[in-house]
């Protein structure tokens, strides 16, 4: 797609927090109202609906009458992928305004949890679960251990990621860890969960909703109230190709094709990116993505972060809202939310000055024969 042909004109974010006791469908409804208000649009403007999961009742309960309702589920790459689908619907003439919706309430029991309720079939957790390989942390831990063994990355460097993210989140009222500092010693003292991950290497389930409204650049220009952010480029990659080549764990998903396509579409280079918002369920995610996107050399992600590389004054300010680990876990929408805030100048104490271009990533789908599989990249641009 051509840069600046598709605009994100509305963003609605509910409160993000633990155990709010609000069901997921209601969270999406609340987020939709906020997004409509943000864009200055009425309900009937929405003629396309994309839901990051499977749900049959959304359109009825949200009072929508679109031309289509598409489910999308490709793990942590679902959020950026839903924007790619929205752009496709608009550019192929299927819709003018597409709502990309997310809402989950895992910490209120709104989703099957562990302890007998987890449906391994639907999540395709696969055979290794039979002997105890359960949960996303372990899939990412395999990458982390590989990285430590091959590059000498240390637990303290993982801890440096956790501390940096907390430092970003400390002054952000929208972060779950607002006002709660941690030190590297806190990280080292936190309980080991799945080696090499300690508790403070991991994100926590969050209840919350997020809805984004996507339309054409032409339509966006006619909307008086909207403060659009533009899609400059997008790309996808899947690690199954590396599985076939027997080289999975040196990769963090398959970032190379996703990044190449997104940057080619945007017509920009890495040096043009003002802030990066990575999907970061675990500390290793930031380290490996910094390397695979090219912000530092292979194996240098740990020292890069420990030296302040993703701080506000660093080479590439990243996950400035605290990311998923210290901000909130809205699946792949966490990085998109923060990119939108940065490009609209709404990031407050962690605002990157004059941020015009943001890199956004999503990755996941850690199931089947366990690994983290899917990856998607968006490059977003501020209103010129």
């Amino acid at each position: 797609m051509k840069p600046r042909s598709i605009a994100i004109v509305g963003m609605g974010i509910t409160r993000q927090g633990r155990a709010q006791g609000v069901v997921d469908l209601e969270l999406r409804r609340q987020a939709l109202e906020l997004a409509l208000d943000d864009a200055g649009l009425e309900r009937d403007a929405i003629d396309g609906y994309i839901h990051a999961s499977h749900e049959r009742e959304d359109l009825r309960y949200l009072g929508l009458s679109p031309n289509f309702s598409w489910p999308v589920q490709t793990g942590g790459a679902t959020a950026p992928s839903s924007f790619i689908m929205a752009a496709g619907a608009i550019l192929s003439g299927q819709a003018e305004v597409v709502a990309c919706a997310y809402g989950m309430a895992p910490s209120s029991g709104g989703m099957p949890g562990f302890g007998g309720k987890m449906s391994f079939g639907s999540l395709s957790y696969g055979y290794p679960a039979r002997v105890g390989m359960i949960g996303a942390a372990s899939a990412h831990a395999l990458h982390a251990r590989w990285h430590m063994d091959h590059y000498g990355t240390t637990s303290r460097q993982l801890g440096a990621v956790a501390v940096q993210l907390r430092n970003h989140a400390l002054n952000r009222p929208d972060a779950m860890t607002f006002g709660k500092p941690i030190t590297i010693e806190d990280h080292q003292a936190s309980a080991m969960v799945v080696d090499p991950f300690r508790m403070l290497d991991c994100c926590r389930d969050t209840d919350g909703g997020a809805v984004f409204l996507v339309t054409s650049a032409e339509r966006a220009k006619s909307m008086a109230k909207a403060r659009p952010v533009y899609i400059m480029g997008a790309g996808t990659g899947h690690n199954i190709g590396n599985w076939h080549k027997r080289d999975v764990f040196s990769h963090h998903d398959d970032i190379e094709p996703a990044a190449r396509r997104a940057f080619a579409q945007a017509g920009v280079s890495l040096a043009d990116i003002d802030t990066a918002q990575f999907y970061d369920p675990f500390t290793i995610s930031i380290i490996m993505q910094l390397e695979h996107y090219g912000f530092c050399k292979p194996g240098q992600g740990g020292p890069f972060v420990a030296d302040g590389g993703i701080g506000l004054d660093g080479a590439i300010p990243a996950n400035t809202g605290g990311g998923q680990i210290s901000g909130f876990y809205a699946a792949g929408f966490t990085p998109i939310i923060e990119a939108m805030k940065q490009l609209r100048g709404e990031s407050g104490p962690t605002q990157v000055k004059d941020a015009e271009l943001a890199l956004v990533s999503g990755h996941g789908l850690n199931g089947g024969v366990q690994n983290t599989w899917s990856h998607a990249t968006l490059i977003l641009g501020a209103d010129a």
Partner: protein
Amino acid sequence: MSRDSIAPLITGDLDTPIWDAWADGNRFLLHRCGTCGRHDWPASCCPEHGMSAMEWVDTPGTGVVDTYTIFHRAYIKELASEVPYAMAVVRLDEGPYFHTRLVGVDPAAVKSGMRVRVRKGAGDDFPLFAPE
């Protein structure tokens, strides 16, 4: 160690030959392309030659630990008595990855590059690996 409560095997599944052979004297099968000799696990389609020459073959079940993680937390109550335990990705000598539990070794002593072999005759309903 029955795991049907966690992840039941499905009767008639494409991987049935693996489980039947494992139950039959702990034979360890891989899916092999007769055209190029590539081995895969579980049931697979050769990325180059498709499905037509795929066949199940007996293999020794040996390889090296490519990477691993140690569970210090039980994610479900059935595993509470087993932590800490090591999950490894074994790179089988024929090429494919095989995710499994390591046994016969202190989890703290597990290292990448360690040679391992499938454990037979212990009544395991899933192939577990131990140091050679």
